[in-house]
Protein backbone atom coordinates (compact mmCIF):
# COMPACT_ATOMS: atom_id res chain seq x y z
CA UNK A 1 0.00 0.00 0.00
CA UNK A 2 1.24 3.47 -0.83
CA UNK A 3 1.91 5.94 1.90
CA UNK A 4 -0.47 8.81 2.40
CA UNK A 5 1.73 11.78 1.72
CA UNK A 6 -0.74 14.62 1.95
CA UNK A 7 -4.25 15.58 2.84
CA UNK A 8 -5.15 15.28 -0.84
CA UNK A 9 -3.94 11.70 -0.89
CA UNK A 10 -6.13 11.00 2.10
CA UNK A 11 -9.18 12.62 0.51
CA UNK A 12 -8.79 10.67 -2.70
CA UNK A 13 -8.39 7.50 -0.77
CA UNK A 14 -11.41 8.27 1.34
CA UNK A 15 -13.60 8.79 -1.70
CA UNK A 16 -12.47 5.55 -3.19
CA UNK A 17 -13.04 3.58 -0.03
CA UNK A 18 -16.34 5.27 0.64
CA UNK A 19 -17.62 4.24 -2.74
CA UNK A 20 -16.62 0.70 -2.12
CA UNK A 21 -18.44 0.74 1.18
CA UNK A 22 -21.46 2.44 -0.32
CA UNK A 23 -21.59 -0.22 -2.95
CA UNK A 24 -21.72 -2.69 -0.20
CA UNK A 25 -24.06 -0.81 2.05
CA UNK A 26 -26.60 1.04 0.00
CA UNK A 27 -27.12 -0.81 -3.20
CA UNK A 28 -30.74 -1.15 -4.15
CA UNK A 29 -30.00 -4.09 -6.34
CA UNK A 30 -32.00 -6.94 -4.81
CA UNK A 31 -29.25 -9.32 -5.71
CA UNK A 32 -26.63 -7.20 -4.01
CA UNK A 33 -24.84 -8.21 -0.93
CA UNK A 34 -26.24 -8.80 2.50
CA UNK A 35 -24.00 -7.32 5.18
CA UNK A 36 -23.47 -9.16 8.41
CA UNK A 37 -21.52 -7.68 11.29
CA UNK A 38 -20.54 -9.69 14.31
CA UNK A 39 -19.72 -7.68 17.44
CA UNK A 40 -16.32 -8.99 18.40
CA UNK A 41 -15.37 -7.12 21.54
CA UNK A 42 -14.29 -8.86 24.74
CA UNK A 43 -17.89 -9.36 25.92
CA UNK A 44 -18.97 -10.72 22.60
CA UNK A 45 -16.07 -13.08 22.23
CA UNK A 46 -16.47 -14.22 25.82
CA UNK A 47 -20.09 -14.98 25.11
CA UNK A 48 -19.23 -17.01 22.01
CA UNK A 49 -18.99 -14.58 19.09
CA UNK A 50 -16.14 -16.50 17.51
CA UNK A 51 -18.26 -19.62 17.13
CA UNK A 52 -21.01 -17.52 15.63
CA UNK A 53 -18.59 -15.89 13.21
CA UNK A 54 -17.22 -19.24 12.12
CA UNK A 55 -20.65 -20.75 11.70
CA UNK A 56 -21.79 -17.83 9.58
CA UNK A 57 -18.71 -18.00 7.41
CA UNK A 58 -18.98 -21.72 6.89
CA UNK A 59 -22.67 -21.75 6.20
CA UNK A 60 -22.74 -18.78 3.81
CA UNK A 61 -19.73 -20.15 1.94
CA UNK A 62 -21.29 -23.58 1.68
CA UNK A 63 -24.50 -22.11 0.35
CA UNK A 64 -22.73 -19.52 -1.83
CA UNK A 65 -24.85 -16.73 -0.45
CA UNK A 66 -24.10 -13.15 -1.56
CA UNK A 67 -23.04 -12.10 1.92
CA UNK A 68 -20.23 -10.03 3.39
CA UNK A 69 -19.34 -10.88 6.94
CA UNK A 70 -17.18 -8.51 8.99
CA UNK A 71 -16.22 -8.16 12.58
CA UNK A 72 -16.85 -4.96 14.43
CA UNK A 73 -16.56 -3.49 17.92
CA UNK A 74 -19.05 -3.34 20.75
CA UNK A 75 -22.52 -2.30 19.72
CA UNK A 76 -23.41 -1.60 23.32
CA UNK A 77 -25.93 -4.41 23.80
CA UNK A 78 -23.90 -6.20 26.43
CA UNK A 79 -27.04 -7.71 27.90
CA UNK A 80 -27.60 -9.76 24.77
CA UNK A 81 -24.13 -10.81 23.62
CA UNK A 82 -23.24 -12.28 21.22
CA UNK A 83 -24.92 -9.83 18.88
CA UNK A 84 -25.12 -9.88 15.10
CA UNK A 85 -26.30 -7.09 12.86
CA UNK A 86 -27.80 -7.96 9.48
CA UNK A 87 -28.42 -5.34 6.85
CA UNK A 88 -30.28 -6.52 3.79
CA UNK A 89 -30.00 -4.34 0.74
CA UNK A 90 -32.33 -1.39 1.01
CA UNK A 91 -33.57 -2.32 4.44
CA UNK A 92 -32.97 -1.10 7.97
CA UNK A 93 -30.37 -3.12 9.82
CA UNK A 94 -31.66 -5.65 12.28
CA UNK A 95 -29.72 -6.66 15.40
CA UNK A 96 -30.08 -10.17 16.73
CA UNK A 97 -29.11 -10.92 20.32
CA UNK A 98 -28.01 -14.05 22.18
CA UNK A 99 -26.85 -15.60 18.96
CA UNK A 100 -25.28 -19.03 19.08
CA UNK A 101 -24.40 -21.43 16.27
CA UNK A 102 -27.95 -22.68 16.01
CA UNK A 103 -29.40 -19.23 15.90
CA UNK A 104 -26.76 -18.13 13.39
CA UNK A 105 -28.02 -20.79 11.03
CA UNK A 106 -31.57 -19.74 11.74
CA UNK A 107 -30.66 -16.16 10.84
CA UNK A 108 -29.40 -17.34 7.49
CA UNK A 109 -32.21 -19.72 6.81
CA UNK A 110 -35.10 -17.70 8.14
CA UNK A 111 -34.20 -14.03 7.98
CA UNK A 112 -31.79 -13.79 5.10
CA UNK A 113 -33.48 -16.30 2.88
CA UNK A 114 -37.11 -15.79 3.83
CA UNK A 115 -37.30 -12.46 5.60
CA UNK A 116 -38.73 -14.12 8.63
CA UNK A 117 -37.68 -12.56 11.93
CA UNK A 118 -36.47 -14.48 14.93
CA UNK A 119 -37.50 -13.99 18.51
CA UNK A 120 -35.28 -11.65 20.50
CA UNK A 121 -34.50 -8.98 17.94
CA UNK A 122 -32.83 -6.07 19.69
CA UNK A 123 -34.24 -2.66 18.95
CA UNK A 124 -31.45 -0.28 18.01
CA UNK A 125 -31.61 2.62 20.38
CA UNK A 126 -29.02 5.15 19.38
CA UNK A 127 -27.94 7.46 16.65
CA UNK A 128 -24.40 7.45 15.50
CA UNK A 129 -22.90 10.56 13.96
Amino acid at each position, binding site marked *: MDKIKSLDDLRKMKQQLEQQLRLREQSNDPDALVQIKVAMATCGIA*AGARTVMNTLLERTAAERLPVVITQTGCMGY*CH*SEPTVEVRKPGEEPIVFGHVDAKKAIAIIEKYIRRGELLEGVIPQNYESI
Partner: protein
Amino acid sequence: MNTTDHDEHPTVDGIPERERAELKDCQIQTIKNICHSFRHDEGELINILHKTQESFGYLPPEIQECIARELRIPVAKVYGVVTFYTFFSMQPKGKYPISICLGTACYVRGSEKIVEALKNELGIDIGGITPDGKFSLDCLRCVGACGLAPVMLIGDRVHGRVDPLQIKDILTLYT
Protein backbone atom coordinates in the same frame (compact mmCIF):
# COMPACT_ATOMS: atom_id res chain seq x y z
CA MET B 1 12.57 -25.60 37.96
CA ASN B 2 11.80 -26.82 41.37
CA THR B 3 8.13 -26.38 41.98
CA THR B 4 7.24 -29.14 44.32
CA ASP B 5 8.81 -28.30 47.64
CA HIS B 6 7.28 -24.89 48.26
CA ASP B 7 4.11 -26.33 49.65
CA GLU B 8 5.85 -27.99 52.51
CA HIS B 9 7.76 -25.05 53.89
CA PRO B 10 5.55 -22.03 54.14
CA THR B 11 7.03 -19.34 56.36
CA VAL B 12 5.42 -16.75 58.56
CA ASP B 13 4.89 -14.15 55.92
CA GLY B 14 3.76 -16.45 53.22
CA ILE B 15 6.91 -16.31 51.10
CA PRO B 16 7.77 -19.93 50.54
CA GLU B 17 11.12 -20.79 51.94
CA ARG B 18 12.60 -23.17 49.52
CA GLU B 19 15.79 -24.30 48.05
CA ARG B 20 16.78 -21.57 45.65
CA ALA B 21 16.44 -23.35 42.38
CA GLU B 22 19.25 -22.89 39.91
CA LEU B 23 18.18 -21.71 36.51
CA LYS B 24 19.17 -23.80 33.55
CA ASP B 25 21.38 -22.16 30.97
CA CYS B 26 18.60 -22.09 28.43
CA GLN B 27 16.34 -20.37 30.93
CA ILE B 28 18.99 -17.75 31.62
CA GLN B 29 19.33 -17.26 27.89
CA THR B 30 15.58 -16.72 27.56
CA ILE B 31 15.72 -13.99 30.19
CA LYS B 32 18.80 -12.45 28.56
CA ASN B 33 17.01 -12.35 25.22
CA ILE B 34 13.98 -10.69 26.73
CA CYS B 35 16.12 -8.06 28.45
CA HIS B 36 18.06 -7.54 25.27
CA SER B 37 14.88 -6.98 23.27
CA PHE B 38 14.15 -4.08 25.63
CA ARG B 39 17.68 -2.68 25.31
CA HIS B 40 18.41 -3.58 28.96
CA ASP B 41 16.52 -0.43 29.81
CA GLU B 42 15.40 -0.43 33.43
CA GLY B 43 12.52 1.84 32.40
CA GLU B 44 11.12 -1.21 30.61
CA LEU B 45 11.16 -3.34 33.75
CA ILE B 46 7.41 -3.89 33.73
CA ASN B 47 7.37 -4.94 30.08
CA ILE B 48 10.29 -7.26 30.78
CA LEU B 49 8.47 -8.82 33.73
CA HIS B 50 5.38 -9.32 31.56
CA LYS B 51 7.36 -11.13 28.89
CA THR B 52 9.24 -13.21 31.42
CA GLN B 53 6.07 -14.25 33.19
CA GLU B 54 4.61 -15.15 29.83
CA SER B 55 7.56 -17.50 29.26
CA PHE B 56 7.89 -19.01 32.71
CA GLY B 57 4.38 -18.78 34.10
CA TYR B 58 5.52 -17.03 37.23
CA LEU B 59 8.39 -15.02 38.68
CA PRO B 60 10.26 -16.94 41.37
CA PRO B 61 13.25 -15.30 43.16
CA GLU B 62 15.91 -16.79 40.92
CA ILE B 63 14.27 -15.28 37.87
CA GLN B 64 13.98 -11.88 39.52
CA GLU B 65 17.65 -12.07 40.46
CA CYS B 66 18.57 -12.89 36.90
CA ILE B 67 16.60 -9.92 35.59
CA ALA B 68 18.20 -7.62 38.17
CA ARG B 69 21.64 -8.75 37.07
CA GLU B 70 20.84 -8.21 33.43
CA LEU B 71 19.50 -4.71 34.03
CA ARG B 72 22.18 -3.92 36.62
CA ILE B 73 19.63 -2.83 39.20
CA PRO B 74 19.16 -4.04 42.78
CA VAL B 75 17.04 -7.15 43.03
CA ALA B 76 15.14 -5.42 45.85
CA LYS B 77 13.86 -2.99 43.26
CA VAL B 78 12.65 -5.80 41.03
CA TYR B 79 10.96 -7.44 43.98
CA GLY B 80 9.42 -4.10 44.96
CA VAL B 81 7.84 -3.84 41.52
CA VAL B 82 6.74 -7.49 41.40
CA THR B 83 4.97 -7.17 44.75
CA PHE B 84 3.31 -3.92 43.78
CA TYR B 85 1.43 -5.23 40.77
CA THR B 86 -1.12 -7.97 41.23
CA PHE B 87 -0.59 -9.22 37.71
CA PHE B 88 2.82 -10.57 38.67
CA SER B 89 2.92 -13.79 40.61
CA MET B 90 5.68 -15.47 42.55
CA GLN B 91 3.61 -18.63 42.85
CA PRO B 92 3.18 -21.10 40.04
CA LYS B 93 -0.37 -21.17 38.73
CA GLY B 94 -2.44 -24.26 38.25
CA LYS B 95 -2.76 -25.93 34.87
CA TYR B 96 -6.11 -24.19 34.69
CA PRO B 97 -5.88 -20.91 36.58
CA ILE B 98 -9.30 -19.75 37.71
CA SER B 99 -9.94 -16.04 38.19
CA ILE B 100 -13.20 -14.74 39.54
CA CYS B 101 -14.17 -11.21 38.68
CA LEU B 102 -14.95 -9.14 41.77
CA GLY B 103 -15.84 -5.98 39.91
CA THR B 104 -18.92 -4.12 41.09
CA ALA B 105 -21.20 -5.44 38.41
CA CYS B 106 -20.21 -9.01 39.24
CA TYR B 107 -20.37 -8.29 42.96
CA VAL B 108 -23.94 -7.08 42.87
CA ARG B 109 -24.81 -10.09 40.78
CA GLY B 110 -23.41 -12.47 43.35
CA SER B 111 -19.77 -13.18 42.52
CA GLU B 112 -19.04 -13.70 46.22
CA LYS B 113 -21.19 -16.82 46.12
CA ILE B 114 -19.14 -18.08 43.18
CA VAL B 115 -15.99 -17.59 45.22
CA GLU B 116 -17.46 -19.56 48.11
CA ALA B 117 -18.65 -22.34 45.83
CA LEU B 118 -15.23 -22.64 44.19
CA LYS B 119 -13.44 -22.61 47.53
CA ASN B 120 -15.66 -25.42 48.73
CA GLU B 121 -15.44 -27.39 45.54
CA LEU B 122 -11.67 -27.16 45.21
CA GLY B 123 -10.87 -27.11 48.92
CA ILE B 124 -8.43 -24.24 48.48
CA ASP B 125 -8.38 -20.58 49.41
CA ILE B 126 -7.91 -17.55 47.21
CA GLY B 127 -4.30 -17.57 46.03
CA GLY B 128 -4.10 -21.32 46.51
CA ILE B 129 -3.48 -24.18 44.16
CA THR B 130 -4.98 -27.68 44.31
CA PRO B 131 -2.59 -30.41 45.47
CA ASP B 132 -2.62 -31.97 42.00
CA GLY B 133 -1.60 -28.63 40.51
CA LYS B 134 -4.64 -28.57 38.27
CA PHE B 135 -6.50 -25.51 39.46
CA SER B 136 -5.40 -22.33 41.13
CA LEU B 137 -7.81 -19.73 42.44
CA ASP B 138 -7.51 -15.94 42.19
CA CYS B 139 -9.66 -12.87 42.11
CA LEU B 140 -9.41 -10.03 39.69
CA ARG B 141 -11.03 -6.69 39.13
CA CYS B 142 -13.30 -6.34 36.16
CA VAL B 143 -12.46 -7.94 32.87
CA GLY B 144 -14.90 -5.53 31.32
CA ALA B 145 -17.46 -8.18 30.50
CA CYS B 146 -19.98 -6.69 32.92
CA GLY B 147 -22.85 -7.64 30.64
CA LEU B 148 -22.17 -11.26 31.47
CA ALA B 149 -21.87 -10.77 35.23
CA PRO B 150 -20.96 -12.70 37.26
CA VAL B 151 -17.93 -13.71 35.28
CA MET B 152 -15.09 -16.10 35.87
CA LEU B 153 -12.08 -16.92 33.77
CA ILE B 154 -10.54 -20.34 33.46
CA GLY B 155 -7.34 -19.90 31.56
CA ASP B 156 -8.28 -17.56 28.73
CA ARG B 157 -11.87 -18.69 28.56
CA VAL B 158 -14.52 -16.44 29.99
CA HIS B 159 -17.50 -18.07 31.65
CA GLY B 160 -20.34 -15.62 31.96
CA ARG B 161 -23.59 -15.58 33.94
CA VAL B 162 -22.17 -18.18 36.25
CA ASP B 163 -24.49 -19.80 38.77
CA PRO B 164 -22.92 -21.31 41.91
CA LEU B 165 -24.79 -24.53 41.14
CA GLN B 166 -23.04 -24.82 37.78
CA ILE B 167 -19.54 -24.77 39.27
CA LYS B 168 -19.23 -28.53 39.43
CA ASP B 169 -20.29 -28.93 35.81
CA ILE B 170 -17.97 -26.19 34.59
CA LEU B 171 -15.01 -27.73 36.38
CA THR B 172 -15.64 -31.12 34.79
CA LEU B 173 -14.98 -29.45 31.43
CA TYR B 174 -11.35 -29.24 32.52
CA THR B 175 -10.05 -32.70 33.04
